[in-house]
C-alpha cells in the first residue's frame, strides 16, 4: 500500500524525507502545492477538510492551514516562506500549534522526470528532541490502535541508515 511514497526517517538526524513521483508536469504540481484553492482539494487524510488555508507566496510571507478532522477537532499549523524558486523549490518554516517550541524547516523540490514530477519534501528540525516532540504531538492526531508494524519500522530505520 505504501510503495509509492518513499519515506526516510533517519534515527540519528532530525529529518524526515518524503519522495513521490506524480504523473503531471512540474508546473502543475507546483500550482497544486502553492494555490490555496488547489491545496484544500488534496491536503490531509481522507475525510478531513481544511477549514483555513492561507498562502502568501513570497519570501517572508506567511502560510496557515487548519485541518478539520471528521470528529470536528481542528489542528492548526503554519509558518513563513523563506525561499521561493517558482516550479523548482520552496523553503518554509513549519510550526504545529500542538508543539509551538518545535519549529521545523521544510524544503520541497520539484524535478522533471520525463513529463512526470519527482517531489521531494525534507522536514528538518533543529534537534532530534524537537523532531520527536512533533512526533509525540502528531500521535494525538487521529491516534488509533497500533498495528504491529515493528518489522516494517526496523526496515525503514535500517534503510535510512544504509542510504547515507
Amino acid at each position: 500500500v505504501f510503495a509509492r511514497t518513499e519515506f526516510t526517517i533517519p534515527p540519528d538526524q532530525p529529518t524526515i524525507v518524503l519522495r513521490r513521483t506524480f504523473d503531471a508536469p512540474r508546473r502543475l504540481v507546483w500550482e497544486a502545492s502553492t494555490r490555496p484553492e488547489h491545496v484544500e482539494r488534496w491536503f490531509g487524510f481522507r475525510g478531513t477538510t481544511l477549514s483555513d488555508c492561507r498562502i502568501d507566496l513570497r519570501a517572508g510571507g506567511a502560510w496557515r492551514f487548519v485541518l478539520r478532522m471528521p470528529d470536528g477537532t481542528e489542528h492548526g499549523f503554519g509558518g513563513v516562506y523563506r525561499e521561493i524558486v517558482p516550479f523548482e523549490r520552496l523553503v518554509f518554516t513549519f510550526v504545529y500549534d500542538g508543539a509551538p517550541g518545535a519549529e521545523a524547516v521544510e524544503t520541497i523540490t520539484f524535478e522533471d522526470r520525463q513529463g512526470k514530477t519527482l517531489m521531494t519534501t525534507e522536514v528538518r528540525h533543529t534537534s532530534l528532541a524537537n523532531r520527536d516532540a512533533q512526533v509525540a504531538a502528531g500521535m494525538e492526531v487521529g491516534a488509533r490502535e497500533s498495528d504491529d508494524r515493528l518489522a516494517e519500522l526496523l526496515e525503514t530505520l535500517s534503510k535510512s541508515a544504509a542510504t547515507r
Partner: protein
Amino acid sequence: VDALTVTLSAVADPTRRSILDRLKRGPATVGELAEPFRISQQAISKHLAYLERARLIEKRREGRQHICELNSGPLAEVAQWTEQFRRFWEESYERLDSFLVELKAKDEPKSRRDPPARKAKEAPRVRKD
C-alpha cells in the same frame, strides 16, 4: 528527555539495530548476540545496557547465562506515529494524484498554446498577426 527520544537514539546505532533484529526471532544469550559482530563482548554489553535502559530489551538470568528478550513496546509507540505520518502523506498524495488528473484535463488546451507558461498573472500579450 522523553521516552521517544530515548527509543530513537537507542535505534540510531547499526549494531543495536542488528541486535534488535536478531531478538525479533526470539530470546538469545549475550554470547549468541555477540557472535555475528567483530567487537568484544564488553562492547556488546555496553550496547545491551543501552537497550536495556531504553526498555527495548529485558535481561534475565538462567543459571550462568544471561538471556535477552525483545520488548517491542517502545518501538510500537514510534511505529504508531510513523504509521500516522505515512498515512497522512500517502492519503494526501493519492488525493493529489486525482486532483492532478483534473488539473491536467483543464490545462491541456492552454499548454498547447503557450508551452512554457511561466507566469500565471502575466499581462496578455498583444499579437501582431
